[in-house]
């Protein structure tokens, strides 16, 4: 059967068809929908893990036990999961183990542009790169077989344009391979130094064999066209190159990105007059080709930063083509993403904004948008978890500099479970004077509303125990009097808690608890709640604009609140000095 699918849907389908039994992931754009789609296949046990390291360990354990297992994450997730990955390369697998890494060239929704192909070399795991949805399905399936044949974890590397582009896919049926037999085998699966020392040469041996096979593997192929120009390429770059050059070039399409096929590259290079390496991000293949003593053109003409696209390639490969278009010389306003109308994060940042002598170490989630004006309160954003830990260091450094500024570290509920708990323990253990704010909107909002340990539901929608953040905070040693649970829709209560935290000289934690305004049940419940402006009382002082709510506008010389997007959170009402905002509905 044929269907149009995103790369992510196709990977899920490929795993299903391959007989995958266990899948685990932590959400992260552009990889999130892989597990969301796998969850639709009841034959696969799937779960959200608290973070990527845990997810890979879950998948690794399942693989050793004999199940075909998959784990998916965004590129930075592999940094978190690197520890198990490197050693799983030594233990090898029992059931096939596939690790999807979704890179984000162009930084559509990430904090860096790292090229995870280097992880394959570094971790000594095989790497496969599909270039459209059909290949996502086919390669995902193939990855399980390769993993078992070579007893090696296989990294399936995709990028945003592969994950989120749709193309036609031919589906097959599931091949149920069952769960392989597991036999205790400590010398393979217990990596104490004595055993690991013996495994390392085995790994080198496997890679040598795979390196040889890479010259014949069907994932790599030469497509001969005009031999004046030869292009070595992979992933989405292959599609762009094909689009621009058609049959006016020859292609070596790389599907197995690690190990790279030396003989095949030599054969291809000697068959063409001018050789290009076209790849997004780093000169990964280019460096390899050059190391073989082969001349090629790569990053001297194609950018390292950002995505490639047909236009960029055209400018280099066919500079004679010109493109005309329309231009309207007109200044237009920017349209940055913003905290939604009714977002519970707003109240906390509005409150923090009042303090001129605080440092806010932020984290990644919807609340990252507090970096933008008019809230504009956050000083740092590095990676998940750093909202607390960077705050610890910041506070220590400020103290040493005799700078009395108070440090507030912020993160969301999902981020707290992901890597905030260890940071909070560090803060207590090392007697930090920072304050921590946990923005508990009862969901993983940024990536599109995934369940997490605090929501009481699993990936498949089953009811599960709610892990209580307040109890964790208590358990790691934050004193009861230094914990406040507040409703960030209530500015008075929020302000009081922030003031207490500001004055505290011990670790202080505020849990701002209020569900995301976009959660379906919340939307339903609040559907009739609205705020409106009483034009008789409004003085157009614009105080309400300071909360940065997209529902409030100063239009045609009057303040208005868009009734379609307002959810009656009443923040604007609370900041109005003239009682000019009223609340409607129950």
């Amino acid at each position, binding site marked *: 059967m044929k269907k149009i699918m995103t790369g992510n849907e196709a990977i899920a389908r490929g795993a299903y068809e391959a007989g995958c039994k266990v899948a685990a992931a932590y959400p992260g754009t552009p990889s999130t929908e892989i597990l969301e789609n796998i969850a639709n296949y009841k034959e696969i046990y799937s779960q959200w893990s608290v973070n990527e390291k845990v997810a890979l360990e879950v998948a690794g354990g399942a693989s050793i036990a004999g199940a075909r297992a998959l784990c998916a994450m965004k590129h930075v997730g592999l940094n978190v999961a690197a520890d198990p990955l490197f050693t799983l390369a030594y233990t090898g697998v029992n059931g096939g183990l596939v690790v999807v890494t979704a890179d984000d060239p162009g930084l559509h929704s990430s904090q860096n542009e790292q090229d995870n192909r280097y992880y394959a070399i570094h971790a000594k795991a095989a790497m496969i790169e599909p270039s459209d949805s059909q290949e996502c399905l086919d390669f995902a399936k193939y990855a399980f077989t390769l993993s078992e044949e070579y007893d090696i974890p296989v990294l399936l590397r995709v990028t945003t344009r592969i994950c*989120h582009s*749709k193309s036609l896919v031919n589906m097959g049926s599931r091949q149920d391979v069952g769960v392989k037999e597991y036999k205790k085998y400590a010398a393979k699966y217990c990596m104490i130094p004595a055993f690991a020392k013996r495994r390392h040469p085995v790994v080198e041996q496997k890679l040598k064999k795979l390196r040889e096979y890479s010259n014949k593997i069907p994932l790599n192929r030469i497509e001969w066209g005009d031999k004046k120009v030869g292009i070595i390429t992979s992933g989405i770059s292959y599609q762009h190159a094909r*689009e621009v050059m058609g049959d006016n070039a020859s292609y070596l399409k790389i599907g197995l990105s690690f190990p790279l096929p030396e003989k095949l590259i030599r054969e291809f290079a000697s068959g063409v007059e001018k050789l290009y390496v076209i790849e997004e991000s780093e000169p990964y293949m280019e460096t390899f080709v050059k190391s073989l003593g082969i001349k090629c053109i790569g990053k001297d003409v194609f950018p390292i930063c950002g995505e490639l696209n047909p236009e960029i390639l055209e400018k280099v490969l066919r500079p004679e083509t010109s493109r005309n278009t329309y231009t309207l010389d007109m200044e237009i*306003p*920017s349209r940055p993403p913003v905290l939604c109308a009714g977002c519970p994060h707003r109240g906390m940042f509005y409150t923090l904004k009042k303090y001129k002598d605080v440092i806010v170490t932020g984290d990644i989630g919807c609340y990252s948008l507090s970096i933008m004006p*008019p809230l504009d309160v956050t000083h740092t954003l590095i990676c998940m978890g750093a909202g607390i830990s960077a705050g610890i260091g910041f506070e220590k450094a400020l103290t040493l500099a005799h700078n009395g500024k108070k440090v507030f570290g912020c993160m969301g509920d999902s981020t707290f479970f992901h890597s905030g708990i260890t940071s909070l323990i560090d803060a207590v253990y090392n007697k930090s004077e920072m304050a921590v704010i946990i923005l508990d909107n009862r969901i993983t909002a940024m990536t599109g509303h995934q369940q997490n340990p605090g929501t009481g539901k699993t990936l498949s929608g089953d009811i599960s125990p709610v892990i209580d953040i307040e109890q964790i905070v208590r358990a790691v040693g934050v004193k009861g009097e230094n914990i406040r649970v507040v409703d960030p829709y209530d500015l008075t209560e929020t302000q009081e808690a922030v003031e207490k935290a500001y004055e505290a000289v011990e670790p202080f934690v505020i849990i701002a608890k209020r569900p995301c305004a976009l959660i379906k049940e919340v939307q339903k419940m609040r559907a009739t709640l609205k705020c409106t402006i009483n034009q008789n009382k409004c003085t157009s002082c614009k105080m309400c604009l300071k909360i940065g709510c997209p529902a409030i506008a*100063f*239009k045609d010389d009057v303040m208005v609140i868009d009734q379609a997007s307002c959810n009656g959170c009443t923040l604007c009402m609370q900041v109005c000095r003239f009682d000019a905002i009223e609340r409607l509905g129950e």
Partner: protein
Amino acid sequence: MPLKGWVSEMTKSLILVGVGGQGTILTSKILAEGLLKLGFDVKMSEIHGMAQRGGSVNTQIRFGKKVHSPMISMGEANLLVAFEKVEAIRYLDYLKPGGTLIVNDHEIYSLPVLAGKEKYPEKAIEKLEKLVENIVIIKAADIAKDLGNIRAQNMVLLGAAVKLLEILDLDWVDLIKDNLPQKFHEININAFNAGVKQA
């Protein structure tokens, strides 16, 4: 008919642009499924993530006999469907000379505009009309509001696009039904039909 004769061996490109939450992605999905039923190879590229939160969004569709790249180049789009006026201007350089622009006569202020830091341009439509020969202006938001829900504006624009692409002889109503919960069928089908009439 501005797009007449567009069906050929050559790959064609469409781009739908708007503001996160306006339903561009669903519209593109239905459009892509329709093109597929018509026997084309189709690729569609959407970027979501942060853009949901009121940011500027675009989805690109390329179709033809065999499509390689899902991405559209400047000056390549045969049809640009703008769900909002400023977004029409933002993405105008994707439109091919002679291509068709469908623009929703509707404005959504971004936060910098709401906060008075930046200005929403005046007379955007008039200026677009002067520049682009094949322009179709539709009050999709108003039409949808009159039908009962502004959120159906995307189906008004879909109707217009389908009409201009001359691919009406397909059961679009069926596709709309496939992609929406039953309680929204009637209004969205009405919106679609209104769009067809407008174009």
